[in-house]
């Protein structure tokens, strides 16, 4: 596929840049005139979310581009807002919302909707001036767009690891949580070493304790009240029985005396006694109930009070001390999660790497170009997945990155049948001497002459029939 032109409209200003199907050089004598911006405009026009440069706000422009697929289909793209793009192909007009429908849009020219591939394609064909020349197999391409070699290979080789990846994310999240919990338990133990009177100093605990004590006292008092009521009822029953009996006794002098509750010795006393006792007991119960209410009110007020910084720290310490799990328990859970995560990663790696012709093919091409660039020492199949970038620096890394990218481009062409454009921003970089740069250019000339190549640089390169775009002082000048 190749890009025919890009037109930039900003207010009343408009400028078009056309490109050849072959080699293109976006050139300027000086830096900071818009070369990188133009590269980013191209990507923006393809539906990517790229950051604007300082000088040029992309989202305030209308960008139109024309892309030709390898089969000759012409696709016009117009993006006047970051959130959508309009695609014209023949009589068909289609609007795609971005970034949600980016994959659907790019299916038109990349000929795949495999997410693992689509998400990683930019890291294959575009080398950004800043990050591009140090992105080997995992990292940031530009802005928030990443490249991951495992996902890329899984996509190209059609090996679906989505379930395992979900499991991996879940375990990683869980592990992160437990890292935090582990910090909490460590802090808890440090508090305990300092000396744990913090729990006792918590006013809420003190209040809860008092409320509980009062409640127990109240229960006992209420039980006593019930006992008194029972005795009082019994005595009153005697009284009403006596009154109802209407007994009469004969006195020694022969007089008759009616027996009533008033003249039975001790009966009224037994009742008055219990009435008084009951009153005292009821007052005691009321007193306790009021105490409990007051304590509850105090507790409520305490919880509503805005705490000072000191008391927030105390409250935090208090909470931490109450955390029921110890450091060792948490560490054992962490170890278990780590083991599970390792196992899942192993399964993903196994599914990615085992008997994978894509992997073998990539390796062969990486070796080939690394050898041509003189950086092939220590390269094996696992090297494709290396994380050890410290051993690579300066020119070594620069050239190795180039070798990897070329291998990726070849593989994409093999699997998808798409000749990706190769976009290189400042291939001379900071550390590369002209000899090495020439070696890179020679490889492009030799093996990638059917790809559209777009280079942005202040330098000249020995590429045949280079279409030159000379930048002036700014992008739209």
């Amino acid at each position: 596929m190749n890009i025919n032109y890009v037109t930039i409209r900003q207010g009343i200003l408009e400028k078009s840049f056309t490109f050849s199907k072959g080699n293109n050089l976006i050139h300027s004598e000086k830096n900071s005139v818009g070369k990188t911006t133009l590269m980013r405009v191209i990507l923006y026009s393809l539906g990517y979310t790229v950051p604007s440069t300082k000088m040029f706000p992309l989202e305030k422009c209308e960008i139109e581009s024309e892309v030709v697929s390898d089969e000759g289909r012409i696709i016009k793209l117009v993006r006047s807002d970051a959130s959508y793009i309009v695609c014209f192909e023949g009589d068909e007009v289609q609007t795609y919302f971005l970034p949600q429908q980016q994959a659907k849009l790019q299916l038109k020219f990349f000929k795949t909707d495999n997410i693992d591939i689509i998400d990683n394609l930019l890291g294959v064909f575009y080398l950004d001036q800043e990050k591009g020349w140090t992105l080997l197999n995992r990292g940031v391409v530009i802005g928030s767009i990443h490249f991951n070699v495992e996902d890329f290979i899984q996509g190209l080789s059609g090996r679906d690891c989505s379930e395992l990846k979900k499991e991996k994310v879940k375990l990683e999240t869980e592990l992160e949580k437990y890292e935090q919990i582990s910090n909490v338990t460590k802090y808890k133990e440090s508090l305990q070493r300092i000396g744990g009177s913090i729990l006792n100093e918590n006013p809420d605990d003190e209040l809860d304790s008092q409320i509980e004590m009062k409640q127990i006292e109240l229960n006992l008092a209420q039980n006593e009240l019930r006992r008194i009521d029972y005795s009082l009822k019994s005595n009153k029953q005697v009284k009403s029985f006596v009154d109802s009996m209407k007994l009469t006794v004969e006195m020694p002098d022969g007089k008759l005396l009616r027996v009533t509750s008033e003249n039975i010795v001790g009966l009224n006393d037994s009742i008055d006694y219990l009435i008084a006792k009951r009153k005292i007991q009821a007052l005691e119960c009321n007193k306790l109930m009021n105490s409990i209410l007051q304590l509850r009110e105090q507790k409520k007020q305490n919880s509503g009070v805005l705490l000072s910084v000191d008391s927030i720290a105390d409250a935090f310490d208090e909470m931490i001390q109450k955390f029921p799990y110890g450091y060792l328990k948490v560490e054992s859970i962490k170890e278990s999660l780590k083991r599970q995560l390792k196992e899942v990663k192993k399964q993903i790696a196994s599914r990615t790497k085992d008997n994978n012709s894509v992997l073998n093919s990539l390796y062969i091409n990486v070796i080939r170009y690394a050898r041509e660039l003189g950086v092939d020492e220590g390269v094996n199949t696992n090297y494709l997945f290396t994380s050890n970038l410290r051993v690579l620096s300066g020119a070594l890394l620069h050239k190795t990155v180039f070798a990897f990218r070329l291998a990726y481009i070849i593989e994409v062409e093999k699997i998808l049948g798409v000749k990706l454009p190769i976009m290189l921003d400042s291939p001379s970089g900071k550390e590369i001497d002209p000899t090495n740069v020439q070696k890179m250019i020679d490889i492009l000339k030799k093996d990638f002459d059917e790809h559209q190549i777009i280079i942005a640089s202040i330098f000249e390169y020995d590429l045949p029939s280079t279409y030159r775009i000379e930048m002036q002082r700014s992008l739209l000048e």
Partner: protein
Amino acid sequence: MFGFDFQSNAAIILMIENMEVLNSVRVEGDEDIQLELNDGTYVLAQAKAVVNASTDTSNVRAKAKKAMESLSEVARKYAVKELIYFTNSPDPLKEETSRFLFLGLPSRVPYDDLPEAAKKLIDEFLSQIDVPLNTNKLKFQVLPFETDDDEQRYKFVKQKISDFVGEMNIIYDGLRNKLHDVWLLMLDNNGTKTKRDITLKKKDIIWPIIVYVTGHGILDRNAKYCTDLDEGEFYEIERKYGKLIQDRSELFDIVTRIVTDYTEKHLAGRDAIERFVNEYWKDYIEVLGITTLEETIRDNLAKIILYTILRKRFEIDRIKKSVKL
């Protein structure tokens, strides 16, 4: 709140001072404090308190004047024995010649005992009232009542209570505090009743004393001497069976049987109760409903209950008699 507190405490003072002839007491009735006596006459009091009485005399005369008006008004409705202006101000008339009469301890000064200048002041207040009170019945009573420290504020009232129970030969640690608390609660509660005829009867005031003095852990402690238990064993039974002891000593059908039997034995002497218990406890095991208990516990419990019942009866009679209830 301070005013109500003073009023209730003043009522306690007046209750105690008139206990022998008291019938009932009411606060916040037709007058701040109303005491009905046995002969149908009344002691009526106006209670006026100043928060910082010892230093603030700014309104004392106005208060005194108002009190005279109120007492004069109510005196028309009742058969009055005494009309009392009760205050905490040590200088209730802000009058030089009478000041010394009220300083220091609680004081009680009839109108007739006031110096002329003070009388003149009162007469002046009364001259502005249509139907003024009879100064023969007028008394000025001062109770020191100040500060937020309860011990200090209630010092004199509690001393009065102590003296009162002391006169009944009651020795009970903490009784004055308990009585003070319960009487204040009863008076406060009475003050909230809108029906003016709801009063506290004398028996309502006296029975709490009896309840405290004969309560669990008080009276029955002395029962130890009737038993053959050592101190530890005795307290263990008393604690464990406390509710049973109280229960049996409160149920009239059990109490009357034991008290009647005791009375009929006509035992004399200070140890009459102990002798009765030691001799006859076996007869009441079934009555007390403790036959199923283990023998040692059962036997000693019977003695403790018998003793408690008889001592209680004795104390009730004694206290009632001393206050003429």
